[in-house]
């Protein structure tokens, strides 16, 4: 039964991809090719690739460097810095871009996009790398030193070498996220596939053309996903048992303390302090927008909470059977099923939105722009996050423990309630938080699917932000959006800390990639 449900879930997840292909080839293969083979597409490709490469490299350097500073050195206040360095994750890309352009109109185009994307995405490298550095057994570096390597050489060739797959996983996320963003690029006037797809839809009213661009984008994303799989080392971090691991001695920074502090402070200032300050500044400034609000902040917040929570719930419930199946009946078939869901990670929100619009407008018009479709979109888009978040807990709830419960006289149901459920509950909560956080700050698919007459915080913010005069009116929506992201983000941070405190567990990103 588990297998049956899992297959249904995976098929449902991959449906949008099929729909996009269906819509694109509607016009025939010849027309499709003529839509793809034009200089406009080549320009988009160039824009996307040069941005993705530079931002990924910068994020890798900044994320790894920051992780090294907070987790391997004597940097003063490193526990606080660790929190502050992850925190920019709660500021949506389009809010970050908006705060910078609202004060510095010169932040735009390619360089502007590099700055904003790097500030927004480096936590995706920082977070797993910090965990990986913490998990490394100092004994291994000692062995390397005893074999004649200097301390920096030992660090590079043993510890950094071992974190390679973690780093690659982080870079993969940076790259895929960047290709899926829309709001920030629109604000920065930088043309990418997503902005072009929106353009085709809203100004040219050409869904076929939009679908053809989507196909190119999906192929590009899948190419990145596949490339990572080729380069990633299959070997996991080899860690000794729980009792064998000793605490690491932090490296003394000495004279480098002040420059190190300064660079971390500048990073946090640009990525977190500045946007937060600007949101507050524009709220205080207030000012009339000239555009009346469709919805008040409270009603928009209500819709955001409702749809994000429902999306998180659906994603969590859908991920559970797949996760259980993969953990308990581990074979090539179930692993393939589990891994195939990560393809969704490479399908940008705009594509999923587009696919669901196509589905509802052509086949089930009663669901067109319905709340259900928005919830489904969130659940599909963020399913892989939910799956990854719960997998370690599900593995921990081993069937051996259930057997033990049975042998102690508890029936099947009682065993599941008293043993399995408490053990997977943290994973379920993490999955919920992860999806909720992502959905609450989602803009792209929400713009396409938001039910008529309703607005979420993100779309209402966007309605104001697009008119560059209405800073004061947009700011409260951004503030509330950040506010409701903080609680799940904090819980996730706690969960991450606990996860990485258990040696011998594969890290989240190792699971993902």
């Amino acid at each position, binding site marked *: 039964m588990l297998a049956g449900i899992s297959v249904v879930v995976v098929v449902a997840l991959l449906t949008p991809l099929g729909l996009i292909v269906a819509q694109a080839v509607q016009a025939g293969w010849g027309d499709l090719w003529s839509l793809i083979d034009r200089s406009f597409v080549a320009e988009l490709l160039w824009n996307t690739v040069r941005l993705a490469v530079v931002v990924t490299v910068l994020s890798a350097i900044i994320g790894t460097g920051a992780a090294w500073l907070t987790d391997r050195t004597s940097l003063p206040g490193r526990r606080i810095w660790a929190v502050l360095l992850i925190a920019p994750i709660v500021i949506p890309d389009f809010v970050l871009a908006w705060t910078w352009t609202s004060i510095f109109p010169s932040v735009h185009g390619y360089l502007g996009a590099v700055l904003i994307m790097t500030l927004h995405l480096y936590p995706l490298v920082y977070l797993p790398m910090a965990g990986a550095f913490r998990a490394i057994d100092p004994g291994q570096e000692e062995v390397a030193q005893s074999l004649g390597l200097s301390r920096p050489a030992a660090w590079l060739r043993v510890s950094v070498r071992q974190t390679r797959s973690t780093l690659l996983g982080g870079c993969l996320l940076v790259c895929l996220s960047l290709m899926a963003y829309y709001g920030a690029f629109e604000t920065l006037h930088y043309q990418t596939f997503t902005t072009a797809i929106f353009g085709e839809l809203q100004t040219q009213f050409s869904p076929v053309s939009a679908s053809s661009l989507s196909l190119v984008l999906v192929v590009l994303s899948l190419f990145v996903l596949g490339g990572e799989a080729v380069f990633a080392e299959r070997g996991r971090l080899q860690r000794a048992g*729980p*009792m064998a691991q000793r605490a690491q001695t932090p490296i003394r920074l000495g004279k480098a303390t002040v420059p190190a502090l300064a660079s971390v402070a500048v990073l946090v200032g640009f990525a977190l302090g500045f946007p937060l300050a600007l949101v507050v500044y524009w709220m205080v400034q207030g000012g009339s927008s000239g555009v009346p609000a469709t919805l008040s902040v409270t009603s928009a917040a209500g819709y955001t909470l409702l749809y994000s929570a429902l999306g998180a719930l659906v994603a969590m419930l859908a991920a559970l059977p797949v996760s259980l199946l993969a953990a308990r009946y581990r074979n090539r078939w179930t692993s393939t099923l589990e891994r195939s869901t990560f393809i969704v990670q490479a399908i940008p929100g705009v594509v999923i939105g587009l696919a669901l619009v196509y589905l509802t407008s052509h086949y089930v018009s009663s669901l067109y722009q319905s709340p259900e479709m928005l919830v489904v979109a969130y659940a599909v888009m963020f399913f892989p996050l939910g799956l990854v978040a719960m997998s370690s807990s599900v593995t*921990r709830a*081993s069937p*051996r*423990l259930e*057997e*033990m*419960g*049975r*042998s*102690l*006289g*508890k*029936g*099947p149901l009682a*065993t599941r309630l*008293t*043993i399995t459920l*408490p*053990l997977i509950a943290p994973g379920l909560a993490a999955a919920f938080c992860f999806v909720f956080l992502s959905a609450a700050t989602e803009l792209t698919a929400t713009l396409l699917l938001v039910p008529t007459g309703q607005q979420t915080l993100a779309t209402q913010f966007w309605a104001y932000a697009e008119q560059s005069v209405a800073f004061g009116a947009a700011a409260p929506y951004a503030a509330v959006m950040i506010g409701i992201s903080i609680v799940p983000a904090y819980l996730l941070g706690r969960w991450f800390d606990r996860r990485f405190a258990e040696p011998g567990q594969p890290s989240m990103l190792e699971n993902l990639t």
Partner: protein
Amino acid sequence: MSTITCVGLTKSFGTTRVLDRLDLAVPDGAVVTLIGESGSGKTTLMRLVAGFERPDAGTITLDDDVVDSAQRFVPPDKRRIGFVAQEGNLFPHLTVAKNVAFGLPRAQRSSGRVRELLDLVGLGDLGGRYPHQLSGGQQQRVALARALAPRPRLVLLDEPFSSLDPALRSSLRADVMRILRDQHATTLFVTHDQAEALSAADLVGIVGDGTVRQLATPETLYNQPADAAVAKFLGDANLVDGTVDRGAEGRGVDHRLVHTALGDLHLVAGRQPFVGPATVLVRPEQVVPHRLDDTHPSDPATGRVVDRQYFGHDCMLVVSTGGGRSVRVRCGGQDTPQLGDAVALSVDGDVVAWPAPATDAGTTDAGAAPARAQARTASA
């Protein structure tokens, strides 16, 4: 406590037949160890008895209740069989006390039974800890307390000490066995450690080829193994070719001799008599080394010490007797021969022999055999 009887248990995983018509009867209150190569089906047998898996064929009977047969299946929660696994498998989200209380009816959870069991395993003060705060040995003690709490009819121990270091292992084993005997608990104990199997048990079962090849007291098993494979598996063994002389028949059943390269040896009484080529078991401690200068004329074998491992209480020698043959010798820790010394060998005590495999069929003629007797060594 109870008896357990398995009849004709068969279980396959895919195309691999793990258990093949296995029979086993464990008497009331006995501690039975099962020993066998890894993959011999010991753990599968335990899981079938516990009810975690179903056999393809066969029946399992606990006292007079059939708990598993083609017609009837009693789920694990209705069997009252305690299980202690290799990894302990404590519930990580529950404290030690709650782990132990898990199998108790609600009314008994605060009745002092938990404390009683924790005291029994020597962890009276650790009830509030979580499993990850305990050492490996402590975790196994908790696992035992948890299994004993609901007063099971049978306790299954599946290599419970194998993840512990050797020093801790033997002391914990002694403790656990004392507790199980005090509780008069019928126990099935799987291990792959010979010393553990012999020292801990009332009965030892050798598991191999999907069945129990011999179930006997430790003494019987060591001194009179059912076949050469069992002999090699349990303890060090010299398996020597020999011939049981037809002429010896006249001297009566109790005075049979077997001719070997180590001399004419007396066979253990009371076994199925046979005549012809034989495989003879000579335990290393039965072989006595003598200095060459006080050689008895009757010592048939001489050789040179080619390997020597000194353990203090005893010493293991490998003596090359020429022609590529060698004999393992265990002797006392004092005044032992040195590496390179020439020694003469004699055999103390009676030996066990089995008819040799059919490949030697051509040399059944009794008189000629001793000359081509060969000694092989085998260590388990």
